[in-house]
């Protein structure tokens, strides 16, 4: 999308993302302690250190895919022996790092002093970060988050908290910096207030026609990944929510003749956002919500915000570790999806079966059956890969999406 066609929030997003990557490289060059993290490592803790920057390889990989260089980076990893069956985020990141950041829109990521992965979204992040750990000779801290089939248990929460303390100690030891609790608490306040605005932004999907598309939310989640804990994070989501509110009031909708309200399950296909969005809009269809973006700032089993109460930051951060879809079971996923379907008035669900994210996808066949049998919601399963365009077939996907719209029509006519 050209700058001229972007909304104010869209332009602001481009600006702050560019600044964030420039700042990351600049501060790393000036001697800041650099940490690479998995997306749901509690980034707010890092603001407790005076001179530390963090980079998020998953987000960087998504950006590469969104900018059209995902396959190029994947091929680099494949040439050095990494199987095409591995997660495309990992292949992009490994390929990009092996080639010194070439072809990356942000010139890659600065070399880390510490790698912090976790296994709540997937254990493969640990295996992926192990690749860097060995190739670069950098220490690797692993956060172990127990999977949950029901609400997170106290024993698991305490276990996670203990690891967070160990993480702080590890960084103190490696960086020589002292951790400041007040600064970490303040960072968590920024995140919390930013998420309030994020939820306000998402809530405009309830309007008929919807004030947003899920594609907007996919693009706009980038600050959540790389800028949590900052005033810019809060300010950006306030701008986004305010602007969306004004557009809804003014009757300015992304799909004005909206006839089909759809819901998306899985990670965004970063290489197809614009194409998929515009093609669906031409058919009067709008994917107005997604599990991927709705789970931000929640706890497992619900898409409602789980606010920070201002007390112990460790407890809050540990409590929200299972909120992303992958770290909890099918029963909890169903509960949250059902809530979203009913709240948003969803007509159909698109289950994106994602070869690059098996933990997200492996329950989808049963999930699809449940939604059909218990809620009577039509749905389709489409094959995607979140960052490797070579594994995507537009024809096949749109044939299925058209079939979904026909199913919805048939249900309405019945």
């Amino acid at each position, binding site marked *: 999308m050209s700058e001229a066609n972007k909304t104010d929030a869209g332009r602001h997003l481009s600006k702050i993302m560019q600044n964030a990557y420039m700042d990351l490289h600049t501060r790393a060059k000036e001697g800041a302690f650099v940490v690479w993290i998995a997306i749901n490592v509690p980034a707010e803790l890092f603001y407790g250190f005076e001179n530390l920057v963090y980079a998020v390889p998953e987000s960087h990989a998504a950006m590469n895919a969104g900018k059209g260089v995902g396959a190029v980076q994947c091929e680099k990893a494949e040439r*050095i*022996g*990494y*199987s095409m*069956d*591995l*997660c495309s985020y*990992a292949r992009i990141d490994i390929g990009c790092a092996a080639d010194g950041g070439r072809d990356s829109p942000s010139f890659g990521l600065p070399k880390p002093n510490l790698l912090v992965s976790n*296994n709540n979204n*997937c*254990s*493969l992040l*640990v*295996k*992926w970060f*192990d*690749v860097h750990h*060995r*190739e670069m000779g950098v220490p690797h*801290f*692993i*956060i*172990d988050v*127990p*999977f949950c*089939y029901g609400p997170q248990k106290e*024993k*698991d929460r305490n*276990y996670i908290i*203990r*690891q967070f303390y*160990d993480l702080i100690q*590890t960084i103190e030891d490696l960086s020589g910096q002292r951790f400041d609790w007040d600064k970490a608490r303040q960072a968590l306040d920024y995140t919390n207030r930013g998420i309030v605005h994020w939820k306000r932004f998402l809530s405009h999907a309830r309007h008929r026609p919807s004030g947003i598309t899920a594609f907007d939310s996919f693009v706009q989640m980038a600050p959540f990944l790389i800028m949590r804990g900052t005033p810019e994070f809060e300010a950006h989501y306030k701008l986004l929510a305010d602007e969306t509110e004004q557009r809804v009031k003014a009757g300015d909708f992304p799909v004005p003749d909206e006839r089909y309200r759809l819901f998306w399950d899985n990670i965004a296909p970063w290489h197809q956002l614009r194409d998929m969005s515009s093609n669906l809009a031409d058919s009067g269809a709008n994917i107005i919500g997604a599990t991927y973006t709705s789970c931000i700032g929640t706890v497992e089993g619900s898409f409602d915000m789980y606010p920070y109460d201002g007390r112990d930051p460790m407890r809050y951060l540990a409590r929200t570790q299972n909120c992303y879809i*992958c770290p909890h*079971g*099918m*029963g909890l996923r169903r509960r949250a999806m059902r809530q979203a379907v009913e709240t948003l008035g969803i007509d159909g669900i698109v289950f994106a*079966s994602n*070869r690059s994210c*098996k*933990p997200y*996808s*492996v*329950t*989808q*066949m*049963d999930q699809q059956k449940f939604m059909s049998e218990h809620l009577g919601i039509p749905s389709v399963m489409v094959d995607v890969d979140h960052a490797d365009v070579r594994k995507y077939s537009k024809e096949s996907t749109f044939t299925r999406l058209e079939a979904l719209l026909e199913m919805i029509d048939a249900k309405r006519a019945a």
Partner: protein
Amino acid sequence: MIGCFPLYPPLELFHSLGLNPVVLWRLKGEGGQTGESDRHLQNYTCSVARHMTEFLLSEESGAFLDGIFMYNACDTLRNMPEIIEGGLETAGRSVPFFNIHIPMVPPAQTDGDEYLKNEVNRLIEELEACFDRKFDSVAFQNSVAQFKRLRMLYLQAEAAVANGGIGFREFAGVFRKAAGMPVEQQQGILEPLLSQYAENSKNQDKAGIILSGILPPPDAMVEAMESSGLRIVGNDIAALHRSYADMPQPGAEPAAYYRDFYFNHYPCPTLLYSGDRRVQALLERCQQTGAKGVVFIGEKFCEYEYFEFPYLEKKLGGQGVQTLLLELAVDDEDHSAAHGARIEAFAEMLSTS
């Protein structure tokens, strides 16, 4: 009988409570349909999960289980309990599920002892309540001794494979046959096998290789290796060597025993904290057995294994150990002859190196 999801369940504990634990590897052997499983799992799920689901949901094979156990062995398996429970419910069956979380933190980083201890104790309480049994430390020690004996027998059998007394196909066949049996019966199968074999030096000039992977390869593939002039002198297979290689310190206290069992376990990509020890362990295996090559039997879609292949290949190659990666997916047993040309080329390379 309690069916245990792979890979390394606490078998001794179940046995001490009078239960017969069975690790749900491919108990039906090679081949087999996955029709029921295919209704629940995408085709890019690994064959271990697909065959296990098929087994548990099929009336004739899964119906005799009194319980099912799983731990956080991998990202796919952790999603399976609800799929299995749903499938059983649809079939009008219900089997109690037990699960524990094995800490995956490196012990030098975070102390997971207390957490593991609580998990093991919770499991004992749940088993006692469900099956109306009482944990007994003497019985536990007896079970530990039984499984230690079994592991030693497997190691002896592996040594017999290395010196040519037993063929790898025969060894893998014994494993497949014994895997579903009580520990005492497994010993009863291995003991006569070991008493009958004689060292066979006629193939000692053939190039020795180690097989690495999740499951033993199909017989046709082993045959292709052997007929190409390769000699299997050891394995780094999850269902075999990785499962029986270590002998935890016997003791009456399950938490301490399983602390030793898990945290000092022979390296496996699924035990996240063991990653740094893996290369060294494989190199030591090569040195002990004189293997000149390692053949990775890639379990298609097992990303744990695949993330490590390039690094292992590089490190082993640096020590003069050649590697070959073969890939197996569901139903690939029927097509394993297709790997013949690559196996022959690899054998040729080893013989001239």
